[in-house]
């Protein structure tokens, strides 16, 4: 199966018609959940993910509280119907690992020392999955955190790059992720040129690694602008609902 499936055709188009360095259709929405302190929604290709942020708020259980900073907690979960075969409602090891790396991707951006002895909770629910959910989750979570008014050094933006039929490609979809030769999720604080998440699964030569990272940066630049646009338009719209400013 793996060798049979052709993921890139003779004209250099990918299985969904994209060019090697082309992102999937991408859409953000900010402030979709009324009860959360901040929230965001992302559609990236077939991914549909909702993120809610609560806090800074009191820590339960109390002994987890840190005297000098806020505790950042993230939970990444997949809805049972988000994948082809119904997923068990209990979180698996994959969801737990992803929750951790997402937290560590977001943490460098947050000025947690401003809220000692509190907790900031980031809840991520994948409603539909199509490859690259951890990256899409990070990009959306950054917006939800900004929407909650949590001070940040920069937004965090993420994308996966990978190796498919021997070529380095941007923003893997589910099929490329499953049948390709390598997958490398990258998250950055773009204006600080700081990498906050880097993983790799598959084989890359050092040259390919370099090329992949460059391509990731290029994709991140585009996604960053979309994130900023979504935030700006939500808050400008909110201001416009007032008669007088």
């Amino acid at each position, binding site marked *: 199966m793996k060798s049979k499936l052709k993921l890139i055709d003779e004209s250099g188009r990918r299985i969904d018609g994209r060019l090697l360095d082309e992102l999937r259709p991408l859409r953000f929405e900010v402030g979709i959940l009324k009860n959360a*302190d*901040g929230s965001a929604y992302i559609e990236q290709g077939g991914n549909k993910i909702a993120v809610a942020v609560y*806090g*800074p*708020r*009191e820590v339960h259980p109390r002994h987890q509280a840190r*005297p000098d900073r*806020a505790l950042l907690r993230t939970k990444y979960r997949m809805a049972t119907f988000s994948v082809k075969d119904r997923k068990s409602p209990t979180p698996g090891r994959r969801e737990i690992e992803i929750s951790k790396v997402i937290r560590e991707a977001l943490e460098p*951006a947050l*000025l947690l020392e*401003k*809220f*000692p*002895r*509190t907790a900031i909770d980031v809840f991520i629910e994948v409603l539909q999955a199509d490859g690259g959910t951890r990256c899409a989750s990070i990009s959306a979570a950054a917006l939800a955190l*900004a*929407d*909650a*008014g949590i*001070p*940040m*050094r*920069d*937004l965090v933006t993420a994308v996966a790059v990978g190796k498919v039929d021997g070529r380095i490609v941007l923003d893997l979809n589910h099929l490329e992720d499953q049948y390709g030769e390598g997958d490398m999720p990258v998250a950055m*604080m*773009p*204006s*600080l040129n700081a990498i906050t998440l880097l993983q790799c699964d598959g084989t890359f030569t050092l040259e390919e690694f370099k090329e992949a990272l460059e391509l990731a940066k290029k994709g991140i630049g585009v996604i960053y602008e979309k994130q*900023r646009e979504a*935030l*700006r338009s939500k*808050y*400008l719209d*909110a*201001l*416009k*609902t*007032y*008669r*007088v*400013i």
Partner: protein
Amino acid sequence: MIKVKREKIKIVLPGEVVKVGDIKTTTEVIKLDDKLVSTLIGIPKMKRRRGERVLSVLPLKTPYIPKEGDIVIGKIVDIGVTNWLVDINSPWKAILPISEVLSKPVNVSKIELKDYLNIGDLIVARVIAFDLTRDPLLTIKESRLGKATRGLFLELSSWDWLLLKSKEKTLLRGVKKKANCNIVLGANYRVLMIGKGLEEELKALEIVRETLGRRST
């Protein structure tokens, strides 16, 4: 306080360079080399303070951070042996000690705290101490402070609150004159309208909505 022409509104985002140069800033702006970077979503403002230029960002959304002297509207959420725990819509729960409620010293074993303030009661209080190492401390031992026995209670977004605050004088006067109500703008984005009855308070709510310039609050 907030007077920006709509077409001239500039919103900055976290990570965005607001200005470059050696200018003083408030805490929502951080310095990276000579770049002044916003950490919040807000409207940048240049102020003069003691002859010096100071760059700040007026946040469009921010949690309430208690300050000494703030008048807040709190909700009693728990009762301890010698104090009440108060939700003041901030990241930290506030403490209201018995000594800041009763004027005379009492023997705590002889009284029931819930007879004074019970869970769910709203209070108008003043923040008398707060720093990042300790929970905010409240008092209600001043005139105009104390338990609210009736009234219409509103929780606003930080931006709505800021807007109301900037029109506080007109609002207070209008609510008094047209609705015969008193209105408390708690610094913690909470509002309490207190009149003789519900009719008056609903009228006051209308005036608040008009002041915000839109229907929903």
